[in-house]
């Protein structure tokens, strides 16, 4: 399902966090949201999964304004994997956590049916968590946990996936496995990623947020230019597509200060 964010303004405690942010993802697109800390990436995601109401502007999933939908209706379209991770889920097994994804499909009197069991089993298999399906979440490794949370999101049977730093703290292999999993689902995805290399590897399009506004948006190679990387992140880097089709970013060894790298300045140790 397509995602359309139009002229969004968000204010927290009277401080503007997002200003005039617009973003589009076509059905099946994977859009990466990158930008330095505090640029408003997670805030933007919160308006999509209906946790933070924008002061102005509109978020549409499919044709509908998510803020005009009932919470459960919106949650049947959009699933999120967030940084609160497992929360306080001591005592729930992996299968029980994946089954939380069925919550938006039931009212107070709803009981688990065949469709729920099928969705949960399917999500467990797709994310490869079957081997530890009966274990306590707390006993899992970081990579295993993220796969469980992704399985929970898939059990929700969403048309849009929202991911906040899904691959943080994971080793390189676990990162690649997760990215492959997300690509394989074919679900429209909006993902906040800190690691630009991973963003370049996973996404069709990138949106660069900087101080609450969109600094650049478009295909990966058009966005990750030395100029934009310098302006947004304060680094010197170049991006190129290698012969094997993989996009790689090469960073200079030092941060930029006032247009020069710190190494160029005589008094910097």
């Amino acid at each position: 399902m397509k995602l359309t964010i139009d002229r969004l303004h968000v204010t927290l405690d009277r401080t503007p966090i997002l200003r005039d942010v617009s973003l589009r993802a076509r059905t099946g697109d994977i859009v990466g949201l990158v930008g330095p800390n505090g640029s408003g990436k997670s805030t933007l995601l919160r308006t999509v999964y209906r946790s933070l109401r924008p002061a102005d502007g509109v978020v549409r999933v499919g044709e509908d304004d998510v803020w005009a939908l009932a919470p459960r209706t919106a949650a049947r379209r959009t699933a999120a994997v967030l940084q609160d991770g497992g929360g306080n889920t001591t005592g729930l097994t992996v299968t029980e956590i994946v089954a939380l994804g069925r919550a938006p499909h039931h009212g107070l009197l709803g009981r688990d049916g065949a469709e729920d069991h099928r969705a949960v089993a399917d999500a467990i298999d797709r994310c490869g968590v079957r081997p530890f399906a009966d274990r306590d979440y707390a006993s899992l490794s970081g990579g295993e946990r993220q796969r469980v949370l992704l399985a929970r999101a898939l059990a929700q049977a969403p048309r849009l996936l929202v991911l906040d730093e899904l691959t943080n703290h994971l080793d390189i292999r676990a990162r690649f496995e997760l990215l492959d999993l997300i690509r394989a689902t074919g679900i429209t995805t909006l993902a906040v990623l800190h690691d630009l290399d991973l963003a370049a590897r996973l996404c069709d399009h990138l949106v660069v947020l900087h101080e609450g506004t969109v600094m650049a948006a478009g295909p990966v190679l058009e966005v990750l230019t030395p100029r934009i990387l310098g302006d947004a992140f304060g680094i010197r880097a170049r991006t190129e597509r290698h012969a094997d089709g993989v996009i790689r970013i090469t960073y200079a060894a030092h941060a930029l200060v006032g247009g020069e790298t710190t190494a160029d300045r005589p008094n910097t140790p």
Partner: protein
Amino acid sequence: MTAAVSIGAVNVPLGDVWGIVLHHVTGAGAAHSDPALDQIVWNFRTPRVALAALAGAGLAVSGAVLQTVVSNPLADPIVLGFSYGATLGAVLVITLGGGAALAGLGVSAAAFLGAVAAGALVFALGQRRGRLAPTRLVLAGVAVGYAFLSATSYVQLQATPAELRTVMFWMLGSVAGTQWDQLPTVSVVVLVTTTLLTLFGRRLNALLAGDESATALGVNVNRLRAVLLMLTALLTGTVIAVAGSIGFVGLMIPHLVRLTTGADHRRLLPLTALLGAVYLVLVDLLSRTLNRPEEIPLGILTALLGAPFFLWLLRRNKGLD
């Protein structure tokens, strides 16, 4: 439960207990040949065992729900201030007796009002800009509890020794002297709220995933917290009003069930209710047999018996590391 009815200052054979209860409930069979035994079983023992079961179930379920609502394993009706609210209400009526302002208000009614008032206060103080944050709720509960406690202490200073003994006994909880006419309200409230809370089980589970994730799962987190807080205040208020402020059950029983059968609320809440009921019936049985014919208040025994077992279970469990 039959055993709990049969044992006491006078022991009644199990068969006779069944005969008497059946006769009263269904009218079947003849009345028991000994009217004194009939009186003991039907008018004294059965209602008190029933109340012990209801109180145990209600307190344990409240504790289980509150622990999830404020995402804090230490939460229970005492930490959230409900019990202290009830205590102040009860103590006011006990010491002021038929004081002009409180005329017509019984100890039970005052305790109930106290608990619900504490619940409303915690609810009001725990929110900021319409959001009920877990940590703020706990702290508000603790603060409200302390405020009610100091008010209670002040009132106690004015009390006579006889009143103090009544207050003490009430604060430690007891189901002695339960009358049949006390039971209908408690049974309805305990059954209805426990059923409702169990229906909220799926959403309570989602709350375990954290506020943001629960929101993304379609749960209106704020409204859910408010509803659960009100239901538990109503439940504990009703129980404490008739059985006194019994501690430890609300804290321990939910953890016991979690540690043995997991945290899925759709299973956790019914099992917690069941175990809470059984536990308090047993404790009540001990309270009137250990030191016959004197009775030991329930609150003393719940912790004395429960704590060592609970600690043993904690040490055995690896999931908490």
